[in-house]
């Protein structure tokens, strides 16, 4: 069993024809029902649904309040290293780019952790590039051991692992996995992932499922919007989340919607995704999957992020940097992508308070 079976069924599916056939009634039905199916989701993602954007937003807002209340979870990313063996055309750290390669040693990590913990962060996301050689699972495990002493929750955003490797890291204290398929369309995937471990579409696609079957607490998936036509990509992303939720009900599933940002490299084959598109995406996802969290990273600017809060976002990153050890700025400024929201934790907390949201820095902790 794999989500790939679902994707294969839809290869060759005429999305355009399907969108053309969406009627006003379909959108109305999708907004009135409780247990939305695939056609309801398609209707909400259709170009015709734009005319009902405010209605979809109202429903999304209500559902978010019902299931998440007025709380926003906050976390910060820690880039452990930027060594990479994969050549992915859209990424600043890809193996083909001339970039200063660095990796934190444990002392540096400790310093970074202390700094962030003092700020008040309790949930962190640790990232590496795609390099088993420079950042093997053992190195990551040891980092987790250190970070355990400072944070209540550690999630990983690293190269795809095997089931037993996920088990190892979960045993060490990891409770969340973030892994984006980047692009669900297999042909485009092949085009933008030239070589290296990340070029295996299915191994990556099945990664959240491998982690879920070893009982990881949270799984966060997503697509890098702009790599493929966004309507079909979000469709697959939503169905992927539903697939995980249906088959692994004990796992907390959430979604991210990163949009391609300026970065080092020459990747220009970008499908456009406007701000209005993002609003449609967030609200359609929220209505289709009322209980799935939606994270907004600092790829988006501050004003936009603030406006999206009431539309279905449940998790935000703060005080972000995409440079290795960037929080304590000991290193050079090799960045994965340009940050558009540079506010620190105190500033984000202020905005949330103004908008009547409670910032949640610590959602849970491990007892053992």
């Amino acid at each position, binding site marked *: 069993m794999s989500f790939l079976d679902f994707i294969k069924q839809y290869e060759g599916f005429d999305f355009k024809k399907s969108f053309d056939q969406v009627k006003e009634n379909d959108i*109305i039905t999708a907004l*009135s029902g409780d247990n939305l199916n695939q056609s309801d989701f398609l209707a909400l993602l259709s170009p015709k649904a734009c005319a009902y954007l405010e209605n979809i937003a*109202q429903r999304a807002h209500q559902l978010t309040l019902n299931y998440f209340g007025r709380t926003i979870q906050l976390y910060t990313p820690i880039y452990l290293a930027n060594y990479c063996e994969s050549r992915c055309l859209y990424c600043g750290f890809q193996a083909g780019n001339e970039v200063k390669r660095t990796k934190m040693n444990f002392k540096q990590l400790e310093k970074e952790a202390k700094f962030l913990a003092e700020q008040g962060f309790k949930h962190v996301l640790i990232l590496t590039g795609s390099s088993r050689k420079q950042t093997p699972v053992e190195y990551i495990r040891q980092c987790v051991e250190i970070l355990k002493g400072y944070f209540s929750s550690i999630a990983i955003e690293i190269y795809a692992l095997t089931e037993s490797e996920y088990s190892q890291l979960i045993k060490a204290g990891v409770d969340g996995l973030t892994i984006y398929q980047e692009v669900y369309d297999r042909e485009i995937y092949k085009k933008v992932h030239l070589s290296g471990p990340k070029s295996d579409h299915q191994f990556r696609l099945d990664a959240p499922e491998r982690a879920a079957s070893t009982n990881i607490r949270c799984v966060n998936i997503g697509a890098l919007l702009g790599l493929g036509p966004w309507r079909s990509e979000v469709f697959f992303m939503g169905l992927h989340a539903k697939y995980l939720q*249906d088959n692994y009900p004990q796992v907390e599933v959430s979604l991210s919607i990163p949009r391609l940002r300026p970065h080092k490299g020459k990747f220009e084959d970008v499908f456009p995704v406007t701000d*209005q598109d993002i*609003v449609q995406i967030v609200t359609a996802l929220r209505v289709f999957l009322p209980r799935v969290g939606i994270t907004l990273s600092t790829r988006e600017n501050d004003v936009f992020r603030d406006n999206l809060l009431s539309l279905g976002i449940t998790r935000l990153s703060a005080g972000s940097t995409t440079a290795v050890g960037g929080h304590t700025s000991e290193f050079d400024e090799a960045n994965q992508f340009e940050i558009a929201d540079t506010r620190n934790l105190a500033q984000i907390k202020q905005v949330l308070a103004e908008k009547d949201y409670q910032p949640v820095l610590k959602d849970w902790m491990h007892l053992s």
Partner: protein
Amino acid sequence: MKDTLIIAGRAIKNRLFVGTGKFPRKSIVKDVLETIKADVVTVSLRRVDLDSQDENILEFVPKSSQLMVNTSGARTAEEAIRIARLSKACGGDGWIKIEVISDSKYLLPDNEETIKATEVLAKEGFKVFPYMTPDLYDAKRLVDAGAVAVMPLGSPIGSNRGIKTKELVQIIINEVKAPIIVDAGLGMPSEAAECMEMGCAAVLVNTAIATAKNQVLMAEGFSEAVKAGRKAFLAKGNQAEQIKAHASSPLTGFLHEK
């Protein structure tokens, strides 16, 4: 339009399953079952009474009906298994409704014992229809254990209160890929129609029919209601509320601000 229910290899036309308990006379049972052309009929297994020669209930059940033997009386999985095996020795062909109840106040079934019995009996080739207290994860366990359908209760046996467990049963219908048959507690045909509109594969009714003043008429009412509810489910169109127009766009207005 063909809409036959197929369970355990048998085509079932009438989605009203009928229980034969609590009737004043066996002859009425016969009238009811013949009038509505019942497809699935439940009976129990009991010790013979040497003092009064009991006519065999099977004489009152149409030969074309499928017999489903109820393990009522069982308080544990072990007892249910024993009754099931005895039913086979008695000539039953293996359709078993597992009813394990050790609660004499509400008669609520014990899901845990029911799952145990299902596992054993399914392996022995019985077609298991477990009667359960609606719980999504127990329903999944029952299907994993080999049940051919799941029978969540509508409300406690004999209470005739309708489908009080609607939300939970709806969740089970949405998430479990097996026929869901609401059993127990349905008091009126409209309640049976409600179950079918939700997506149930069938319903099982006993007390409401057996204790009605005119059992045959009540059975007809239930039978027709089940058909009506099923048609509504198949024909479900857009009963959506109209979208309220928005004079302003408080949530998405920012997209148009410059």
